[in-house]
C-alpha cells in the first residue's frame, strides 16, 4: 500500500472513565493514553465491557463519568459492518469511498490488502463471516483515519487473515497511527501492550 497521507500527531486520552449499562456498573476509573505509533489490546472475558469501552472511545456512547480527548479522525470496526447486504461488495464499499472521498485506486489497494479484491462482485449477503469481517476492515482503514478502533477484529478469521490484520496494524502504527483492538483472542500488536478491563471492574 501507499504510505498513508501525512498525519498530524494523533492521540487519544481517556481519563477515569466509568460506564453503566442497564443498572450494572461495568468498569470505573479506567484511564488510557495513546499517541501516534502506539497500539493497545483490550482484553477481558465476554460482557466485561470491551465493546462499551470501544463505543465510548469512538464517541458513540457517553460514559457515566470521565473525559475523552481525541486528536485525529477515528475509524471503528465492530460487529455492525455498515455494508448493504443486497449490494455487490464493490458497490457497498464504493458508498463509503464516496463518503470518505477515497479515490478508486486506493480502495482497490485496500481491497487487495484485506484479501477481498476477488469478492467485489459478490453480494454482501453471500459472503462468509470472515469475508464480511475483512470487507468491513477494508471499509474501516480505507479512509486514512489515524485512530483505529477494532472491536473483535479476529472473529471468524482464519489464521492467514489473522496474520494479515496484525501486519496491517503494525504498518499503521509504523506510519504514526494508533490502533486499539478489543479481542479475547491473542493478537500481536506493536509494543504488545494490553489492558485487562477486569482490573477496573466495579
Amino acid at each position: 500500500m501507499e504510505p498513508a497521507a501525512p498525519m498530524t500527531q494523533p492521540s487519544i486520552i481517556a481519563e477515569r472513565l466509568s460506564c453503566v449499562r442497564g443498572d450494572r456498573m461495568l468498569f470505573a476509573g479506567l484511564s488510557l493514553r495513546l499517541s501516534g505509533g502506539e497500539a493497545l489490546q483490550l482484553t477481558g472475558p465476554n460482557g466485561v465491557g470491551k465493546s462499551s469501552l470501544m463505543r465510548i472511545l469512538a464517541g458513540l456512547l457517553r460514559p457515566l463519568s470521565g473525559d475523552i480527548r481525541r486528536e485525529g479522525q477515528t475509524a471503528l470496526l465492530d460487529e455492525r459492518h455498515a455494508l448493504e447486504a443486497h449490494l455487490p461488495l464493490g458497490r457497498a464499499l464504493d458508498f463509503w469511498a464516496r463518503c470518505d472521498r477515497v479515490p478508486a485506486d486506493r480502495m482497490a489497494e485496500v481491497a487487495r490488502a484485506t484479501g477481498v479484491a476477488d469478492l467485489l462482485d459478490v453480494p454482501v449477503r453471500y459472503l462468509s463471516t470472515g469475508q464480511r469481517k475483512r470487507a468491513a476492515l477494508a471499509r474501516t482503514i480505507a479512509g486514512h483515519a489515524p485512530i483505529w478502533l477494532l472491536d473483535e477484529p479476529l472473529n471468524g478469521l482464519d489464521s492467514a487473515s489473522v496474520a494479515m490484520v496484525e501486519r496491517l496494524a503494525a504498518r499503521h502504527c509504523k506510519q504514526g497511527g494508533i490502533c486499539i483492538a478489543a479481542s479475547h483472542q491473542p493478537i500481536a500488536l506493536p509494543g504488545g501492550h494490553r489492558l485487562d478491563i477486569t482490573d477496573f471492574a466495579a
Partner: protein
Amino acid sequence: MWLAILRRDLAMLLTGGGRRGGALLPVLFFLSVAILLPFAIGPDASMLARTGGGIVWVAALLASILPLDRLGEPDLEQGFFDQWALRGMAEEWIMAARIAAHWLTFAPLLMLAALPAAALFDLSADQLWRIELGLLAGTPGLAALGVMIAALTAGLRGGAALAGLLLLPMAVPILIFGAGGLQQNGEGGTALAGAVSLLLVAVAPFAAGAAIRAARE
C-alpha cells in the same frame, strides 16, 4: 458526503434495498385501492365523484406508510448511523436527506397515479387540479412525519408495525386540511395543509436526529 447519503437513500427506497418492492409498491397499492373503491361503493357516478377525492387522500396516506420499516431500523441495526457519526455527519442532516428521499420516491409517483385514479372516479378537471395541488402541499408533511416516526421506533422491537399505527393519528391534520381543500372555495384547506407540512418538515429532522442519537445509547 451529504449528497452521497441522499443518493444512497434514493437508491435504497427506489429499489427497496433488497427487501420487498421499492417505490413501485406504494403506487400499486394506491392504484389498487382506487380500483377497488368503485366495486365497493357501487357504480353511482355522482357518489364516486363526491367520495373520490377523499379516498385518494386516504390511499395516499396509507401508501406513505409502506416504506416506513426501511427508513430507520435497518440502518441503525447495520451501523450506518454509527459510521456517519464517526465521520462527523450530524444526524439532523442525515434525516433531512432521508425526508427528501422519502418524499421524492413516493409523492411524485403518487401524483402521477392520481391521474388514472381521478378517471376511475369520474372527477372533473377542476377537482383533479385541487387534488394534485393538495397532494403537493400535504405529502412533504407525510414524508417528514414518516421519517420522524421511523426514527422514534427504530430501536424498538416490532417498531415497524408500531410506526404505521403511530403515524395515522398524527397525519389527521394533513388529511383534514388536504381533503378540505377539495371542496368549492377550499383553497384555505390546501394552504393549511401546506402550513402543517412546512412545520413538520422544519421540525422533523431535529426530532428524528435526536431519536436516532437516543436509540444508539
